């Protein structure tokens, strides 16, 4: 299993995919900011949200990795891993196509995922206003639960790691990729809009996602004895 390729793929997917999130998640950050007393340091707060988000992702990744391990154990290693890998790659390619053509293939996944969100959303209301570091982390954790095709693709990648810590690590790298954009998010909603609307950036991001997806599916290392 070429897990060494899985981590950078998750990282890059996070980095380029996060342009897609800016319009959506930027609003969340702006909202958090608006609803927060001036006391806590702005940057500290931001880091805390994102750590909370990381927490949710790692949880998801660990569950997925664990599930992957179960599948591998029951269905036979190679076939199962190959199938998982294929699914993950196709998902990333799909995200790339979304970015390129404004299609929305992952909608069904997001719709499914919004079920989780619906359960958690009432909780979100309790964490506002954000007046303590713990609340900031909690808000970030809930933020991670927003329905997002990109996250689900990464979770699928995490599953292909076939082990519980592996899955968590994949999601950590994914989070690392999204961190720069989302740490900066909320500086100003206006500036975000402009940045994210750059068609050239979308196109480059989309193309890179397609390439990553293709690479992520690369099966040959595991086939050669």
């Amino acid at each position, binding site marked *: 299993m070429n897990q060494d390729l899985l981590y950078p793929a998750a990282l890059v997917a996070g980095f380029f995919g996060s342009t897609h*999130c*800016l*319009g*959506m*998640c*930027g*609003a*969340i950050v*702006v*909202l958090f900011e*608006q*609803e927060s007393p001036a006391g806590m340091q702005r940057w500290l707060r931001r880091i805390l949200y994102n750590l909370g988000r990381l927490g949710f992702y790692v949880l998801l990744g660990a569950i997925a990795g664990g599930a992957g391990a179960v599948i591998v154990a029951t269905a036979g290693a*190679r*076939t199962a891993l*190959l199938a998982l890998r*294929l699914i993950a790659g196709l998902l990333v*390619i799909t995200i790339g*196509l979304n970015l*390129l*053509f*404004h*299609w*929305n293939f992952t*909608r069904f996944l*997001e*719709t499914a*995922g*919004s079920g989780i*969100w619906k359960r958690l*959303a009432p909780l*979100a*209301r309790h964490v*506002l206003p954000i007046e303590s570091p713990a609340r900031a982390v909690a808000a970030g954790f809930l933020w991670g639960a*927003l*329905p*997002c*095709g990109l996250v689900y693709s990464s979770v699928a990648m995490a599953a292909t790691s076939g082990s519980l810590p592996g899955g968590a690590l994949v999601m950590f790298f994914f989070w690392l990729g999204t961190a720069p954009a989302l740490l900066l998010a909320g500086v100003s*909603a*206006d500036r975000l*809009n*402009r940045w*994210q*609307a*750059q*068609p050239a950036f979308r196109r480059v991001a989309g193309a890179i996602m*397609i390439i990553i*997806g*293709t690479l992520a*599916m*690369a*099966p*040959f290392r595991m*086939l*050669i*004895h």
Partner: protein
Amino acid sequence: MNQATNCYHCGEPVPPGVPILARLQGADQRMCCVGCKAVAEFIDSSGLTAFYNFRDAPGSDFKLTPTTTEWSHYDSAELRNRYVHVDNGLAEATMDIGGMYCTACVWLFDNGLKQLEGIESASVNPATRRAVIRWYADSLRFSELLDALSRIGFKPSPVGAGRAVDEKDDEYRLSLKRLIVAAAAGMQVMMFAVALYAGDFFGIEGGIEAFLRLISLLVTVPIIFYSARPFFAGAWRGLRARSPGMDLPVSIAITTAFAASTYATLVNRGDIYFDSVAMFVFFLSATRFLEMRARHRSDDHALALARLLPDTAIRMKGSTSETVALDQVTADDILRIRPGDVIPVDGELISGNLFVDESMLTGEAMPVQRETGEMLFAGAVVREGNATVRVTRTGASTSLAEIGRMLERAKADRPPIALLADRIASRFVVAVLGVTALAAGTWYFIEPSRAFEVALATLVVTCPCALALATPAAIAAATARLSQNGFLLVRSRILDVLTRARTMVFDKTGTLTEGRPVVSGMQNLSGKELDIEELLALAASIETASEHVLARAFAAHYVAGRYEPEEIRVIPGEGVEATLGNDQYRIGNWRFVAELSGAPSDSRAQKDDHTEVFLGTREEMLACFSIGDQLRADAVHAIAALKKSGFRPVIASGDRAAAVRSVADKLGIDDWHAGLSPAGKLELIHDLRSRGESIVMVGDGINDAPVLAAADASIALDAGTALARASADAVSLGRRLGTIVTAVEIAMDTRTIIRQNIIWAIVYNVTAVPLAVGGFLAPWMAAIGMSLSSFVVVMNALRLHRARTENTMTSDHDHNRDERMKQATTT
């Protein structure tokens, strides 16, 4: 795509399909994705909708209220019908938005418009700057919408029924999608293939191998049924037209390889060729894609021309002016023209003095001066000066429209070399099928297991692209390049002739020369000190009464109000007589003036190339004006360049020998013929041709139509007003002869490139086909070879877009024009 609005939450376009709606403060808002819906509903349910207000109007509180001003004519029935489509009370208009430079502008556009009451939706594509706006027809008028846009700071220009651009965009997008699918799936199949090949070497589990083959099959399916569709369509078209093109062998190869591989996969026995198929389709699609891009670029010029004209004009009504729709302007209307305007009609300049940039029409980058009495052409841009213009032709009868039609016609006309290429390509395809069948049959007897593979390789490896793909691409590129230089092909056979003709026959007046008389010199005959300017102004004021050709030479020197001669009498064939104060003046030929003034003291021999006009009073002969027809500014340079590229220039003129000799001497032309009647010119052409020379005739295209027709190819120069009547194989617009030099160069380059491609094709096919038939090439090698070959020839053909322009002196200015072209195409 017109349905797309933007996500209420994040502002991204809403993808097509079932809308995702979020209920916010009791109203449904469109969302781009479930995530946005979740966030938006969360924000709403937290009672934080102020967020959206905060976002939508950061620090500004502009409000749009409808007013009506200069846009009101857009409410006229004609214009509304042209631009606005109303369905069930909902109006829709597509418009290009000028003045949109960045995404911040896009934001301003979207948000600014949302404030306007009655807008249903507005979306703008930041790349093309084209917007689709829908509004409720009963609450907002078209003019109010346009006015609102212009007050936010945009220049809206509604796009009429012409759908050419959209079609082009659609074709582009579809091809791109096909290409991307082929690329993504192709890479995948290749990787599986590498794994399988590696497995062959190092050993592989049977189950895994079968699995990989099955996956390869699945990934290849979209390549066959989506990416490769144009090839199948092309093959079918070719078959129905009974002239099979290169798509036929390509389709056969794809189909059989896919079918055989699918069978092999399902029975899990035999070779699979999914990788070859994928590669083949991808590379061929890429080549086609490039060729299509080039084709669209060639169309841009014609398209830009069509977009050039404004929709409105300022019409004078007595002393007042009104803005009217261009549709309503008719012949003999008086229009006002301001600096920066695009002249909307063909017309005569009745007052004012303009510098106009006619580069869109003529390729000539330098602005030219137009004075009272001269013609102005639709599509020219006023650089300097105000003027009034009497409309002579509008709409579809303008020169601009005629140029557009010529470009269209030229596109439909295929030169002999292209027709030949087609015929050969067609035969080539039949031959390929024959050779393939033969190879398959032969191998079947030698080694049946390899027969299929060899046949497939043979089918794939042969490449008629140099003929079927690259030759038309080369000609399209050359035609586009020429028209940008102000050289319009009417019949593209001239491209062939320009490369083999060695003699170029020129008419003199209006071809080598400007065809407009000017005062080229003055001689003081009075013996006193005289102010030259004053004399010219005096002469000019008297000559205003005359219609004579020579009188026009003085027009430039006329100073209004300086002299007001009375009792003007025009004596046809002699001159003009007038009284100014107490003095009686005569201007005209020597005999006529001498009758009044007596012969001057220093009578001299007439100069050779000039016609002379004398001015005298009752007392004395004052001056002798030389009237000449100036050489075109770049005539010397152009003739020298033509001689350098191997042409023998000949002058065939109806003018006097002395005048013709003078021009010939200045230009260094040895072979000149003067005093020829039209019949004489015709005879000269026949004579030259009977000596086996190929002749290119250059004339004004109007008076010498039969002569032009007698030559192998003909070029009409500066046809101006009479573009439609010009009977020539090509029309050179503008005042430069240099366009002809450039045309020759481009024709030569075109021939060189077509030859290179054909030589390449011969070398490639002669090498590759025997190798394939001999069984030395695996199908995937054949696919790479064929793809590379077609890529090489198409790229080579596209070099013509960047043909050299060293002799045209326009290269510096080309950039500016290209910029304007771009603006004309995009705004």
